[in-house]
C-alpha cells in the first residue's frame, strides 16, 4: 500500500476498480440487501449504519502489515480500538492500520490476465534465465 510507489500508467490505473480488499467486497448486492445508501431511517444521519473498515496487522517488527479482515465502526479511532479487540486478543500484532473499505482501489479480477500480461513474457527478469558455467563460484 503506502510502502511502494505506483508506476503503472494512468491508463492502466483508470481501469482498476474499487476495491477487492475493500473488504474484498463484491459489487453485487444480495437480492434482499438494502440498496447502497439505504438506512434504517432515510434522511436521519443518526440512524446510519457504521461504515466498513479493512484491518491490516503487523504481527511483529520486521514484517509487513497484512490484511486480516474487516469490521464496522463509526469512525477511524473506533475502528482501531475494535480492531485491537477483534484481531489481536492474543498478542497477534504490534501495529494496526485501518482504512475505510470504500477508499481502496483494486485491480479487476475480470481483467487479471491482460492486466498482468506485461510481466508474463519477460523471463529475462529472472536469474534462472541466465546460464552460468558450473565452475564459476558465488553467482
Amino acid at each position, binding site marked *: 500500500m503506502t510502502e511502494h510507489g505506483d508506476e503503472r500508467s494512468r491508463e492502466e490505473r483508470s481501469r482498476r476498480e474499487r476495491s477487492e480488499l475493500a473488504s474484498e467486497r463484491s459489487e453485487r448486492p444480495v437480492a434482499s440487501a438494502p440498496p447502497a445508501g439505504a438506512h434504517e431511517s432515510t434522511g436521519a444521519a443518526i440512524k446510519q449504519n457504521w461504515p466498513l473498515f479493512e484491518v491490516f496487522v503487523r504481527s511483529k517488527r520486521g514484517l509487513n502489515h497484512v490484511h486480516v479482515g474487516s*469490521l464496522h465502526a463509526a469512525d477511524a479511532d473506533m475502528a482501531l480500538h475494535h480492531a485491537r479487540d477483534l484481531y489481536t486478543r492474543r498478542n497477534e500484532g504490534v501495529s494496526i492500520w485501518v482504512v475505510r473499505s470504500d477508499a481502496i482501489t483494486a485491480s479487476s479480477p475480470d481483467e487479471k490476465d491482460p492486466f498482468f500480461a506485461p510481466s508474463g513474457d519477460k523471463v529475462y527478469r529472472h536469474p534462472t534465465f541466465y546460464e552460468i558455467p558450473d565452475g564459476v563460484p558465488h553467482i
Partner: protein
Amino acid sequence: MSQALEQHFDDTIAHDQRIEPRDWMPDAYRATMIRQIAQHAHSEIIGMQPEGNWLTRAPSLRRKAILLAKVQDEAGHGLYLYSATETLGADRTDLTNRLIEGRQKYSSIFNYPTLTFADVGVIGWLVDGAAICNQVPLCRSSYGPYARAMIRICKEESFHQRQGYELLLTMMRGTPAQRDMVQDATDRWWWPSLMMFGPPDTDSPNTAQSMAWRIKRHTNDELRQRFVDMTVPQAQALGVTLPDPQLRWNAERGHHDFGQPDWAEFKRVIGGEGPCNTQRIAQRRRAHDEGAWVREAAVAYATKQAARDLDNGAAT
C-alpha cells in the same frame, strides 16, 4: 461468455484453488456460502448466551476470567464470519435482522439450557470438540475468506476445549456431588453434540453439491464418526460414561459403533421448539434494541467530529 466464466470457476475448484470475493461464481454458490457462513456466524453470537449465563456465578476469579475470555472469543468468531459474508455482498444489518426475526437459523445445540456449572465444562469439551471436528476441514473450504476465518477460529477453539476439559478434571477430583454433576451434564449434552454434525447422510440433500464445490470436505456421518472415536478415550480418562448403550469398539471397522440421536427431536429444535429457542432470540433482540442508542450516539459523535475537522481545515 458466461460459459467461459463457469469453466474458469470449475477449473479453479478442480485445481483445489480458492475462490476469492470478486471472482465470478454461480449464483447458487454465492447463496449457499452466504447462508452457511451467516448461520455459522449466528451460531457463534447466540453461542455466547448459554455460557454467559454463568459469568456472574463462576466459582472463582480464575474461572470467571477464563469464561469471560471464551465468551469474548465467541463474539470475535461471529464477527470474523460476518466479515466473510460481507465479501459476498451480504449486509450486516440485514443478517442481524434475519436472525432476530427468525428467518435465518443457528446451530440447534445452543437451544439447550446450562443448568449447572459443569455444563460450562461439558460445553467446552463436547460442544467445542464437535465444533473443532466440523471446522478443521473448513479451513480448506473453497471460499477464501471463509477458509481464512476458520483458520483463525480453529486456533482459538483449542483453548476452549482444553479449558472445558480441565474444568471437568478438576470437578472429577472433587466431591461425589461434583462428580455426579459432571456425569449429569455429560448425559444431557452428549446427544445434542452428536446432532451438531447435521442429519444423517441419507437425509442431507445439500451435501453432494457442497462436496462438489468443496465447501464441505467430509459428510456429516464421517465427521460424527470421527468425533465419537476421538471422544471415547477422553471420556475414559475423565471417568464419565457416555450415555449410549450401543457404544462399543468395532475391531473389524476400526471405529466405534454407536446409536443414533433422536432425529425427531433434532427437527423439533431446529424448527423452533427446543427448550430455549424463544429465550435465545428474545435476548439477542433485546441486546440489539438496547444497544441502538450506542450505535446512534457513536454516529452522531463521528459526524460532529468530521464537521469540525472540515471547519478547522477551511479556517487554516
